[in-house]
């Protein structure tokens, strides 16, 4: 028998916790958080470096401390949560099935909030050929081994990809006495934040090679080394530049994608650009009453913004529970020149909202233009545009009309 809840929140990371607290504050008390891991906190449990909470709390906290502030509030408010409980299916009519230590549990939900976080791209998804020795890790799994389970990956490491987790792991490994030889990045710009290049690589003299990639992996049972090549303008390896680098550990930090595992079953439309759901300005997916935010929607650099997004989502979800669906218009938001992806992809009302986007290339002194049918909605000068930095702009209410696409571009 399924139990009814006003809202079922899937995922107990910063996005899910913030959504639950905000709903409770808005008077929606009949809610439950379902979390697959043994504790609440999400990915932050393993992010022991500082740099969380600057936007929100004005001070620099470690991941577990940031999460703790939210967990304490969930407990104080008496919000119901179940850990060790993995949601295995979600249907379009908001029926949620989960496996827990006490067996299968089922809910019928007034609203569902997907706050499931992201997945790391692995060796398979970037297709490096070669042997399959041990010693190849994704950056996040190496981080979990070290920070949660006290297991060290190896003695001599090479990092492929300049995502933030890889950079943070370069520093962490160095501090623990592992020799990090280099970071190789296939693109012509780093994937991670500038501050992480400065404080994780430059501080420890770890070189970063742009326009380079790993083309082969060597070793039988244990990794013995990798072949690295320069790439040309089309990202094709240049064979003549091949060099062997010995190492017993290869850490892949080649990108994160929203975890879309539950979307298909619910018939939720996916945006190929973000890899997450298509949502409107209220963070509602293409299926009424199913909402999503945080890294499960699009990958955030900062937990602070994942939390903030969930608070906006909670206002919409509470509105849906009270008044049902009220779509006044159906406008598409499209990515123009220089824009990699954008959230929301749809606009259904004249309400004000915030638009989040990532650029597809490095630009200085660019102008972001948001327009509809050739008419400007907003122009904003941005001094420094980096694909590694998510941009957010607020759009005031009443600016979007029901006719024509909204186009977002750099000019």
């Amino acid at each position, binding site marked *: 028998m399924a139990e009814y809840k006003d809202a079922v929140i899937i995922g107990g990371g910063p996005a899910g916790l913030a959504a639950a607290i905000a709903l409770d504050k808005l008077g929606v008390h009949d809610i439950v958080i379902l979390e697959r891991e043994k504790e609440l906190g999400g990915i932050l*449990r393993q992010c*022991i*470096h*500082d*740099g969380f909470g*600057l936007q929100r709390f004005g001070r*620099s906290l*470690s991941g*577990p*401390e940031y999460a*703790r502030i939210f967990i304490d509030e969930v407990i104080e408010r008496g919000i119901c949560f179940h850990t060790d409980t993995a949601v295995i299916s979600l249907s379009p009519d908001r029926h949620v099935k989960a496996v827990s230590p006490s067996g299968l549990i089922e809910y019928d939900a007034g609203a569902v909030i997907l706050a499931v976080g992201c997945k790391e791209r692995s060796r398979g998804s970037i297709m490096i050929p070669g042997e399959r020795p041990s010693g190849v890790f994704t950056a996040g799994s190496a981080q979990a081994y*070290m*920070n*949660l*389970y*006290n297991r060290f990956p190896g003695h001599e490491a090479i990092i492929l990809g300049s995502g933030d987790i890889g950079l943070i792991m370069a520093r*962490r490994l160095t*501090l*623990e006495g592992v020799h990090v030889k280099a970071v190789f990045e296939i693109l012509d710009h780093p994937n991670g*934040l*500038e*501050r992480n*290049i*400065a*404080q994780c690589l*430059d*501080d420890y003299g770890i070189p970063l090679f742009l326009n380079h990639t790993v083309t082969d992996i060597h070793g039988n049972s244990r990794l013995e080394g990798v072949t690295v090549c320069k790439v040309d303008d089309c990202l094709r390896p240049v064979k003549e530049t091949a060099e062997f680098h010995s190492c017993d550990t290869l850490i892949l930090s080649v990108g994160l994608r929203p975890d879309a595992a539950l979307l298909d079953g619910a018939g939720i439309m996916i945006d190929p650009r973000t890899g997450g759901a298509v949502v409107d300005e209220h963070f509602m997916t293409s299926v009424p009453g199913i909402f999503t935010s945080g890294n499960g929607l699009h990958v955030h*650099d*900062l937990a602070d913004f994942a939390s903030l997004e969930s608070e906006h989502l909670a206002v919409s979800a509470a509105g849906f529970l009270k008044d049902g669906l009220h779509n006044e218009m159906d406008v598409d938001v499209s990515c123009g020149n220089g824009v990699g992806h954008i959230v929301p992809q749809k606009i259904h009302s004249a309400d004000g909202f915030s638009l989040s986007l990532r650029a597809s290339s490095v630009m200085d002194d660019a102008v972001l233009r948001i327009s509809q049918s050739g008419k400007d909605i907003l122009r904003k000068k941005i001094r420094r545009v980096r694909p590694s*930095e998510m941009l957010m702009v607020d759009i005031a209410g009443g600016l979007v009309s029901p006719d024509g696409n909204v186009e977002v571009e750099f000019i």
Partner: protein
Amino acid sequence: MKKLTCIICPNGCVLDVGSADGGIKVSGNLCPKGEAYARAEVISPKRTISSSIRVIGGDSEIVSVRLDRAVPKDMIFPVMDAIRRAHASAPVHIGDVLIHDVAGTGADVIAIEDIS
């Protein structure tokens, strides 16, 4: 003229640091913290670090820790040595000081999670 990346917040401003009239001149910062960072960086660079300390009798082998304040950059490895040698006994609470005045830097090593 020297270029530095401000690490205080995710904006990561690129700072130009030069000397003018015997003083230090900073530009490129979006906020005053950047200027303070650049000055400190030129005079005596400081960093904080995170790591873990072994726990005896706990439900986890280790507890995650961080420094409660920045220490001079050249003290990072001495601090790490002290952290590696240390151990704590369960239970440990978030905020507990596990090493006081680590390696003589004046900074404390504090727990950032609970271990029971």
